């Protein structure tokens, strides 16, 4: 197995007396899709926000390709090769789809200081190529503000891939989408990740999506990591079943007695 792209060790964060994330450790290697699941309030978002620099951590370490990134600003972490998509899409609504991708490309090439060149003419072909990969090339000239939600998710994916990331962080990539779209989007993300040897960490509530695409799964509950491993093993884990029992979200009608 190759050296991990992302290495999280003993990560912890408390809000007042609540231990939102408590001693969580895991790794992700290149080309691997790791799903982080758990019921509401398990600490998934808190964990995610510490990885991408939006929240500070109380303890622990986050290493990206062996480099400690804890405490860095989100933009610095991005420069080290971390792409992101958001639970609620965040795009530049006044710009076209292509310009959104061009911005990421420009930023990646340190081209934002230019005051006199035309932004919309820079890295145009490259942006189109990326949009082609997510099936949005035809919509390149449309303004992001008018796009359907599923399309915005695809744009975000193209933006996230613009800096040739080593790691892709996807917070609920399929939230708010129709079931069919979900499977398609995740299949696309999975194939892109494998093709580019990108390590992917994603959180997800839709268990169909998780079990269809995750190589490994980690399960959080009340801030603690209670299980990790291959999907089949996690599915069979009695502790995981206990956490999810009653909600019915994980096993549908197959809830074991």
């Amino acid at each position, binding site marked *: 197995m190759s050296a991990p792209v992302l290495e999280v060790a003993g990560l912890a964060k408390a809000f007042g007396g609540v231990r939102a994330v408590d001693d969580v450790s895991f790794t992700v290697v290149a080309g691997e899709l790791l799903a982080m699941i758990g019921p509401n309030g398990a600490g998934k978002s808190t964990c995610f926000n510490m990885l991408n620099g939006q929240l500070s951590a109380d303890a622990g370490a986050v290493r990206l390709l062996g480099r400690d990134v804890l405490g860095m600003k989100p*933009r610095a972490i991005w*420069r080290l090769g971390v792409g992101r998509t958001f639970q609620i899409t965040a795009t530049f609504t*006044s710009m076209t789809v292509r310009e959104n991708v061009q911005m990421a490309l420009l*930023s990646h090439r340190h081209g934002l200081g*230019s005051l006199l060149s035309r932004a919309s003419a820079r890295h145009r072909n490259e942006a189109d190529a990326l949009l082609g990969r997510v099936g949005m090339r035809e919509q390149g000239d449309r*303004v992001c*503000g008018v796009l359907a939600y599923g399309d915005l998710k695809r744009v975000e994916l193209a933006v996230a891939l613009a800096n040739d990331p080593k790691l892709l962080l996807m917070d609920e990539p399929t939230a708010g989408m129709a079931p069919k779209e979900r499977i398609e989007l995740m299949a696309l993300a999975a194939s892109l990740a494998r093709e580019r040897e990108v390590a992917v960490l994603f959180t997800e509530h839709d268990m169909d999506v998780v079990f269809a695409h995750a190589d490994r799964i980690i399960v959080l509950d009340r801030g603690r990591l209670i299980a990790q491993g291959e999907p089949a093993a996690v599915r069979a884990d009695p502790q995981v079943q206990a956490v999810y029992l009653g909600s019915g979200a994980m096993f549908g009608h197959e809830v074991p007695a």
Partner: protein
Amino acid sequence: MSFASILAQLLNGLAGASSLFMVAAGLSLIFGVTRVVNFAHGSLYMLGLYVAYSTVEFLGRTPLGFWGAIVVATIVIGALGALIEIAILRRIYRAPELFQLLATFAVVLVIKDVALAIWGAEELVGPRAPGLSRTVEIMGRRVPQYDLALIVIAPLLLLGLWLALTRTRWGALVRAATQDREMVGALGVDERKLFTGVFFVGAALAGLGGALQLPREPANLGLDLAVIADAFVVTVVGGLGSIPGAFIAAILIGVVKAFCIALGTQSVLGLEISFSKLTLVVEFLVMAIVLVVRPYGLLGRPPAQQRAVGEITTLPNMPDWRRWLPFVALLALIPFAAPDDRYLLVLLTDIAILSLFAVSLHVLMGPSGMVSFGHAAYFGVAAYAAAILMRKVQLPMEVAVAVAPFVAGAVALVYGWFCVRLSGVYLAMLTLAFAQITWSVIFQWDSLTGGSNGLTGVWPPAWLADKRVYFWLTLVLCALGIGLLWRMLFSPFGYALRAGRDSPLRAEAIGIDVRRLQWFAFALAGAFAGLGGALFAFSKGSISPELASIAQSTDALVMVLLGGVETITGPIAGAAIFTWLKDELARRTEYWRSVFGLVILALVLLFPQGVVGGLAMLWRRVRPAS
């Protein structure tokens, strides 16, 4: 300084703070619930003072007459506030926030002229409060009884407001709306009634604040902008939407001001510092310090997340210079067409300069999402820098004009460092504070700036003495400046600014340091405004502190909003319409302000996207049919 004199100044400061608190509390209340920054709040204060004056004259100078007048003024101004809400603001709640600001600014203009027509331009000195006209001796100092009454009234009012807000259903609704306006609407509360009610109370507070100053302060027409600047400072220091915050801030500022007067001129580390001269700027210094330490004011909270209204604003296409060149050339030919019309030349020169000024502000307001209430600071600084460089440093005028924008840019760089740490209304108010500081420094630095008289003899050299030649120079430089700014908007830098405005979250997530870019944009806009200021100085031959005043800043704001923030060419149209209209009206009537205000109101109600934005929308609607 003895303890007794400290106490006396403290009481004086507290008495002054009480009216300030009332105005600020009203402003804060209105902003909290309706998100409208009511520029006309100072005007309501001023009217309160005038109405109280006239009512006392009518009722007679008896205790009943005096306190009756205060009650009458409070109610009249409250009703006026409700009327403004119903007649104007209600119609434009869905328009961008800035349009509401523009509308309230138009109200300022109208009220000023109404006051001028009714009460005249002379200061009116009100009567002393009957029954409270004597002084009380406290530790050997004479303190007016009325001051003591004011000191008691303010906390009582705070208590009353607090009770109304926490113990009544209306208060619960106001607090709920302050936290989440949409949610209150979704719960079935009639927003219209609530908003009208809040405007009534907010305006009544301003009226009361003004009326209570009757024995202390002569009524005059300059109060509106002076009071609104003070009230902005108090609300922002206290925290927008927080009434106890406004109380604490008013006292803090009142006391600090009083102490500056008490200190007089002191020698600190061998430097003679005139603290009494500092009173003009000290409140703004307090505000700048508070905002840097606590960005949302002493008791304020970060503003509630506002849900997007689903407004999509795209940048129009980049103006093509090949299309604009003939237009500029045509303008350049005008002096030949009308060789004797000196008035036209002056007007065109003004429009060219103010277009550059407006475009530079638009760069901040539109694509960067930073509204500046104090853009005139850079205009004024550069005008003074150019004049001083030529007159006192004896540099050639050409060099002075070339250097002045850099001076303005440097000042903007310093101010901007603080400003970009904030956003939205807070940012706007901090820019206002810095502009006011600049104005005060210019106003008071007699030896360098000529103080209130300004500087004269700021004329260009012989080759530019001909008004036509100067117009051509101005036209070329301003067109170049505007061209460069427009080009910048479409460059990667300009796009990155827009990215920061559209989604700070995403911008950060693709490695954009939004704050640094905004800082640089701030300085750049300041420098280009400065070029306008320098050219302006030499076109007039004399300059005065007016160039850095709040009025000059709001002029630019109105130009941009009039033209349309979400357009590119709008600011130029705005500058042209504004300058021409102002000139025309000022020549025809003494009451040009109110006519101008009514024109703005009509435009705001008819074209919420600005003139150019509105025309563009009309065009889009008509085009498919043809």
